[in-house]
């Protein structure tokens, strides 16, 4: 790979021209896709396209080390982090179309276009007559990675050391930001049980199980109380549709109708969820 890359560092071959137009188009396509996707997850996938294309462009530009770092750090770690946070805060959170500042979108379009034109005309003033190429500096060092290593641990060693402090600070800072203090001790099973027995309104015993009859054994069939009336509490909370009623026949031919009150005072939350 290094031979292929090193062969053309001082000249631009036709193959490189072709690769540039394909990959450059992919880069711009990915960037525009990120810009105009309504959902943040689609934006993340689009920008991953851009980043992979850029990695190949680095490879063409005689930077194999940076190309690998780009793939590992950006498309690997950073995009994974983005997607992780997206999943944490909800994937379907799309942009609101409400303009908080009046005319902000139009202003953004104008400023963006103006900035692009400014940048392009500024770059357009540059003239590159010849490419020096990196062969002259990578050959004595023994390769691209060795050359970068000599610079990092030589001329830029102070910046490299500061980088380590930056990374440590970032890691600690992320932990501090997302750490949440627990102000009350975590309740144990014993504490939960004692609280339940001290409170009123929550049944102390398990809830009655649903009825099982000759014709009906579905879980939404209520059990019969000793006086023959159906017990609403024996039906799991999930099936206690407000206002709904259900009729079933017992073995001796009696038709029994259960209806669930609309106020839902029987649905007492945690107590009945044990039935499910």
């Amino acid at each position, binding site marked *: 790979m290094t031979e292929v890359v090193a062969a053309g560092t001082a000249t631009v071959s036709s193959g490189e021209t072709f690769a540039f137009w394909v990959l450059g188009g992919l880069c711009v396509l990915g960037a525009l896709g990120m810009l105009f996707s309504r959902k943040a997850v689609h934006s993340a996938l689009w920008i991953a396209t851009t980043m992979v294309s850029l990695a190949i462009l680095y490879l063409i530009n005689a930077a194999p080390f940076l190309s690998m770092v780009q793939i590992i750090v950006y498309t690997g770690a950073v995009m994974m982090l983005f997607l992780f946070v997206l999943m944490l*805060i909800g994937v379907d959170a799309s942009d609101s179309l409400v303009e908080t500042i009046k005319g902000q979108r139009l202003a953004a379009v104008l400023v963006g276009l103006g900035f692009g034109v400014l940048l392009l005309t500024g770059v357009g003033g540059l003239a590159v007559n010849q490419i020096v190429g990196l062969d002259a500096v990578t050959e004595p060092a023994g390769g691209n990675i060795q050359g970068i290593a000599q610079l990092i641990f030589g001329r830029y060693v102070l910046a490299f050391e500061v980088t380590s402090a930056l990374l440590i600070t970032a890691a600690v800072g992320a932990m501090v930001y997302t750490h949440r203090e627990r102000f009350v001790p975590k309740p144990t099973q014993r504490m939960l049980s004692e609280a339940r027995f001290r409170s009123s309104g929550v049944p102390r015993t398990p809830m009655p199980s649903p009825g099982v009859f000759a014709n009906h054994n579905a879980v939404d069939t209520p059990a019969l109380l000793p006086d023959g009336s159906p017990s609403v509490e024996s039906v799991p909370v999930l099936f206690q549709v407000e206002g709904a009623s259900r009729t079933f026949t017992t073995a001796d031919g009696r038709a029994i109708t259960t209806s669930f009150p609309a106020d839902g005072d029987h649905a007492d939350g945690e107590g009945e969820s044990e039935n499910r």
Partner: protein
Amino acid sequence: MNPINYIYLSAVLFSIGAFGVLFRRNAIVVFMCIELMLNASNLAFVSFARINGTLDGQVVAFFVMVVAAAEVVIGLAIIMSIFSVRRSASIDDANLLRS
């Protein structure tokens, strides 16, 4: 092909990123746009390194990547902590300082 085209591509990507920062309302997408701008500047660094025949541009691009990684970690942590308080990732909702 003139290698200045790489710089043109970098300028286009940087402009798209800058436009996205102004245009989008979702804080995470705004962050992606900032990443795009950093990537565009990296492409310029790498191209200039090749044009000028020194490896310093590649080293600087490497440092940009390190700083970008640290920035993403802190930024997403801030977004997470704002989200846990306000239940929203929209940059318009964080207006506590508004009179």
